């Protein structure tokens, strides 16, 4: 079995299963914690609260104007990096192909030049974010091993993806295998660390939006 076969076969299957089990575990372990009933008369009805939750999911993508001057660097870097990742994952031809083969869904891909450019920008943003994390006093205080591991596990797929598309070092098969394995490592870690925020962000914002809408508070 070659490295590529391993990456595409057992490793892929194992990482998908770990991802599914881990995500289910984490979500259920949170959802089933003790809840207390709320008896206070809400300011708004349920439809408005659901609307508030949905609105918060969207509105928190862009911070309030008053916060911008102090967090612009953080917002621009992380937004660029996240949008870049989304473009690469959902716009790159090989990725669409994989999704197509797994789910039957497909859509047009972006030109390779665009993906290459976006990959470069994404990589640069990630490096800048790491440097920031290593230097900013607040981030240094907050950062844990999870932060650095998660960074690495996202960085590696981007890096190997760039090397793969340029075929700069090593053969296509080796780079492809490394790229796939790096993604699989990320999938395996996702349920256990901060990468889980990819899903929790929507739950967290939605729940806050609903709770705050209940109180009529600012979201």
């Amino acid at each position, binding site marked *: 079995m070659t490295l590529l076969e391993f990456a595409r076969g057992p490793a892929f299957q194992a990482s998908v299963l770990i991802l599914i089990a881990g995500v289910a575990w984490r979500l259920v372990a949170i959802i089933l914690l003790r809840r207390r009933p709320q008896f206070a008369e809400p300011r708004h009805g349920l439809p408005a609260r659901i609307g508030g939750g949905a609105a918060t999911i969207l509105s928190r993508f862009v911070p309030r104007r008053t916060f911008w001057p102090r967090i612009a660097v953080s917002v621009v870097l992380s937004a660029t990096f996240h949008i870049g990742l989304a473009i690469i994952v959902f716009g790159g031809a090989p990725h669409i192909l*994989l999704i197509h083969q797994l789910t039957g869904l497909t859509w047009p891909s972006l030109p390779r030049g665009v993906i290459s450019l976006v990959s470069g920008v994404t990589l640069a943003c990630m490096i800048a974010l790491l440097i920031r994390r290593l230097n900013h006093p607040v981030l240094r205080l907050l950062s844990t091993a999870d932060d650095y591991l998660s960074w690495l596990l996202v960085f590696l797929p981007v890096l190997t993806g760039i090397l793969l598309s340029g075929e700069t070092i090593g053969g296509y098969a080796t780079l492809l295998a490394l790229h796939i394995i790096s993604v699989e490592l990320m999938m395996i870690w996702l349920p256990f660390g901060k990468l889980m925020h990819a899903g929790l962000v929507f739950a967290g914002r939605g729940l806050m939006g609903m709770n705050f809408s209940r109180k009529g508070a600012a979201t």
Partner: protein
Amino acid sequence: MQNADDKGNANDDETLGAMLSARGIGRRGLLKFAIAMASSLALPPGVAPLMAANLAKAKRRSVIWLSFQECTGCVETLLRSSSPTIDQVIFDFISLDYQEALMAAAGTAAEKTLHDAIAANKGEYLLAIDGSIPTKDSGVYSLTGGRSNLAMLKEIAADAKAILAIGTCAAFGGIPKAFPNPTGAVGVEDLVSGKPIVNIPGCPPVPEVLSGVLAYFISFGKLPDLDERKRPLAYFGATIHDQCYRRAFYDQGKFAHSFDDEGARQGWCLFELGCKGPTTHNACASLKWNNGTSFPIQSGHGCIGCSEPDFWDAGGFYTSLAGGSAAGWRNAGIAAAVGIAGGAATALAARNKSRPDPEDKP
């Protein structure tokens, strides 16, 4: 090839230069051959005169060709070149002393030829092999004259100057080795050690590669530079993808999505249709087939990666390289159930730690 055989061993002491002159091929022809071979082997053009001079001084080289667990496709391919091509000149340089499919002799006469050739050229002959070698049950699945391929290889390889493993079966085991590999087939390099081996994989291999390797070996007395899989770098150094004339479409993200869509008609990249070009090392895209006429991608089909180890088991021919095999709904369901059960157990344990009542009661 028959020519080479017809001539027998009469001219064995003669140099190749003299022999060719006698046949009306002068030194200009030899130099031209050397130029073509240097080009094919990706050697600098300046090497050609030296190569021609070496060839002129060289003696014909005895070649013993053994066919093991194979389909004769490799031999067919080498014979199918239209005459007279430059590649066939190479057969004037060798003395093909044993080749079961081509030789007139049969039975004990053939056996005798083989033993005579081995005895006469001990340590100097080239051993060419096509087909894989069954190893299961002492190699009983392929026999010649009652002897297993395994035993023959061991014996004949011992006195060879170098070994040419021709075709994917001889090089890597090929289709016989594909799952479930009932005969325990393997390639030559899995059984022979301590001898120079050159693999010329392909199902079938590109004929020009064999010509180039032979010309190099006869000119310089050694094998050309090889990659980590013992393949001549000059022919296997780049992937099909790297040399493909459709590469520009890949770079632009223009892909055929099916064999009859607009992209396919426009000749766009076949990556999505399962082309294995990016992972396949071979010279098809540059040398092409049938005297440079075409190659699979040019005729609209993706590369199937036939020159790579285990190509038969490396996913479907029409499965894109980007694809992976999903875990299946059943396994996914089990994983989700495990996760839900574990998560629920954790949550229930955690509930005991939170306050059951809003009041801080003892």
